[in-house]
């Protein structure tokens, strides 16, 4: 594997407003990356900087080791060999599906072009829709045409800007898995931008969580969930609550439900000095960290419940007044106000020093 794309400390500003600040990441060939973040975090701007639609004011973007964007240099988008799937697809309404997909193949021979288009139509499962016009297609079909059109010239890198946001939820899930398969079958390197974590988890190999123009953590989905680097990532990814606790030593933390033992010495920032004995911390407790157990001496009151089919998500008030979430199999059906026994069952600790409470939210 070799590095395909490298962003080094890039910065982008609209006038005085800094949208992207000191942002870096790399992407290996054949990998699918994702920029995940709430709307307005600058993720689409990063994508447009990579595509060459926006200039950068500092830093460097390298593709195959060659600089394509620098502070006062911006290689025109058409010379970058970077494909893009737009949020609104930007299909050409006056052209058929075949002509749309073949549009970027203008340097190919007619024969070659036809076979490439046919191959892509097969790949995206639209073999019989070639002569149709975009307005005759459903949203999901349009999305696939947009994908095929972007893949057709075999770009070095494919960018997908919120590609599923115009589709309904049920279609979104299915299509995102399908898109991953298509991308992998074409051996494509891609970056996806989305605000939907399920989508990110379904497609991407590595995900960068963005907030206020900066990448908070660039990691696998598993690590984002189980080892969030900071409070923002912990809050943004998955569900959970923070409970106050006290470090006993770098591997043990005490909260009101008991003592947690971590598998690695410290779970806050790498340069953390505070995790010694006695330091007050906030500990991230996920709903699956708290298990329902009638035999447990710890009793918590049901404040709120959300039926999820297989499970019920209970919001519980702990004896000490803290609030926690617990995911319980749905045959354990308890009424509001009822007290149920719970047990802490977590094999690792995610804790943040209480002194940085305000910093990241």
């Amino acid at each position, binding site marked *: 594997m070799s590095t395909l794309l490298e962003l080094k400390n890039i910065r982008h500003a609209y006038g005085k407003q800094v949208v992207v600040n000191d942002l870096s990441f790399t992407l290996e060939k054949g990998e699918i990356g994702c920029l995940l973040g709430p709307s307005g975090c600058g993720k689409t701007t990063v994508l447009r900087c990579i595509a060459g639609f926006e200039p950068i004011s500092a830093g460097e973007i390298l593709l195959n080791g060659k600089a394509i964007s620098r502070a006062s240099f911006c290689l025109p988008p*058409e010379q970058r060999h970077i494909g893009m799937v*737009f949020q609104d697809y930007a299909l050409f309404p006056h052209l058929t599906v075949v002509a749309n997909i073949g549009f*970027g193949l203008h340097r190919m021979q007619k024969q070659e072009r036809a076979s490439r288009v046919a191959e892509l139509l097969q790949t995206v499962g639209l073999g019989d829709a070639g002569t149709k016009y975009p307005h005759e297609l459903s949203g999901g079909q349009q999305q696939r045409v947009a994908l095929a059109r972007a893949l057709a010239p075999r770009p070095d890198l494919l960018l997908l800007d919120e590609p599923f946001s115009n589709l309904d939820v049920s279609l979104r899930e299915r299509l995102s898995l399908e898109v991953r398969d298509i991308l992998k079958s074409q051996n494509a390197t891609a970056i996806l931008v989305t605000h939907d974590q399920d989508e990110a988890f379904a497609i991407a190999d590595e995900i960068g969580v963005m907030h206020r123009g900066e990448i908070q953590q660039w990691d696998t989905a598993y690590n984002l969930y189980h080892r969030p680097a900071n409070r923002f990532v912990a809050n943004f990814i998955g569900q959970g609550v923070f409970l106050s606790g006290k470090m006993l030593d770098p591997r043990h933390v005490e909260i009101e439900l008991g003592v947690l033992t971590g598998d690695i010495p410290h779970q806050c920032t790498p340069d953390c000095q505070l995790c010694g004995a006695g330091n007050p911390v906030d500990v991230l407790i996920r709903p699956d960290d708290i298990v329902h157990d009638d035999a447990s001496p710890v009793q918590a009151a049901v404040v709120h419940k959300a039926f999820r089919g297989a499970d019920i998500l209970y919001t519980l008030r702990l004896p000490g007044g803290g609030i926690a979430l617990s995911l319980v199999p749905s045959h354990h059906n308890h009424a509001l106000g009822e007290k149920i026994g719970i047990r802490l069952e977590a094999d690792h600790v995610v804790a943040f020093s209480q002194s940085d409470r305000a910093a990241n939210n």
Partner: protein
Amino acid sequence: MKGETRNLTGKSSSTRAGFSHFSSSAYRASWGWRLIPFLVAVLVLVPIGTIISSFFAPTGDVWQHLVETTLPGVLVNTFWLALGVGSGAALLGVSLAWFTAVCEFPGRKFFSWALLLPLAIPAYVTAFVALGLFDYTGPVQTTLRSWLGPDLFWFPNVRGRLGVIIVMILAFYPYVYLLARNAFLTQGKRSLEAAQSLGFNRTQGFFRLALPMARPWIAGGIMLALMETLADFGTVAVFNYDTFTTAIYKAWFGMFSLSAASQLASLLIVIVFAMIVMEQQFRSRMRYAELKQSARAGRIALEGWRAWSLTGFASVTLFFAFLLPVAQLGIWAAVVFSQDFDQRYLEFLWHSLLLSTFAALLTCSVALLVVYAVRRYPDPVTRAAVGVATIGYALPGTVLAIGIFIPIAWVDNWLSEIAMQLFHIETGLLIQGTLATMLIAYMTRFLAVSHSPIDSAMQRITSSIDEATRGLGLSGWTMLRRVHLPILKGGIFTAATLVFVDVMKEMPITLMTRPFGWDTLAVRIFEMTSEGAWEQAALPAVALVLAGLFPIILFVRQTEK
């Protein structure tokens, strides 16, 4: 239990259409409503039918004379005029639209609305200002002669074909500009980006993608400009450039041959209908090609001389199409003000205002009735009737004037004959040459103008709004007053303004159907310009331009919000 059932059925029926609360007792009322669009459609169909049937009427000597002398020239003139104005307006309109929609240059924001201002000046006003300025005796050539000597052989003949074409391009390019800009704003930058991500540069992207994608809009704009060109009477009359409209006028008022005039009109109508059919085609394609506006419409930032050359281009256009005519009108008007602003001028003004007000009231009321009729009974037949009723806008004023005059004269004769036989009274002409004829003609021509803003305002009153209102216990007149009227108010106001100004500027219908001696501002301009008295024409023209500015400002404020 019973209440529940009724509630359920009420719900299911009202989801089908906004107003389906009518049981069998309302069946007869439905015919009253449905009749309205048909009556209006008949008002359009009668003139068209009259004109077309006249084509097959026996031909007299006058027609023979026309075919041998006038017609070939008229056809050639019309052909070149349409070709010149069409391509010129396309070039000017599309380029200005692209630059203001997609590029960034000094003054872009100002120009993007200011370039619509020429719509406020009737083409015939621009025409006589251009003649007054650039003709042999005008200030420009006189000054040049005093500098360069008497021989200005290189100076183009303003009165020629080129002069008319340039004046009309300057007057009608905003139609292309407006529609093309709309297309470029919604899809221009995005389609360029898509093209760039597929390996095309910007120039290729424009010609291979942005332009073809905007084709329905551009063609629609050109069609509008061409329809205005074909319908134009005042401009070609000022330039003495014979086209169908002036030929029709001359056949009637010069040779007193109504049949020859209507035969000429029937030829014009065929050309116009070909246009309408094409326009409809483009419009239906527009519907499919509609794209959502992209949130990030960043512009291409141009720098240095490139940016300033765009500023210069837009400035020159605006100067010749708007600033120069307005300034010259102002100067002329100031010169003649003291002698011309008298009792007679006030009379022209009063006539114009009176006609415009009544026409606006009548047209908007009919448009409201039609819109409600379709809302209540949105069946294909009623819709088709509305389609026909709003086609009158495409009919040139000269054609419509004749098409309405002939049947009214016929009805008049018939009425006076009956009166004679039954009551032995000499009634004379009852309708012909009255304001009623003019108002009917205006209504027929401008119904579409008032229909579209009222109709689009009505679209905002969805059936669920009606249901919510009913659910809150309001219905009937209370619902109309408290819910419908406030929502429709803006649309009705826009409609009334547009009709008011259009009627004020309207020339051929007014000229051909007015009561004897009933002069308006437009008629005054026609009379003064046919004598070459540009300065005297300026004072009434100023009033028209001021009135014309009003809807443009309204439109700009609405769209720039």
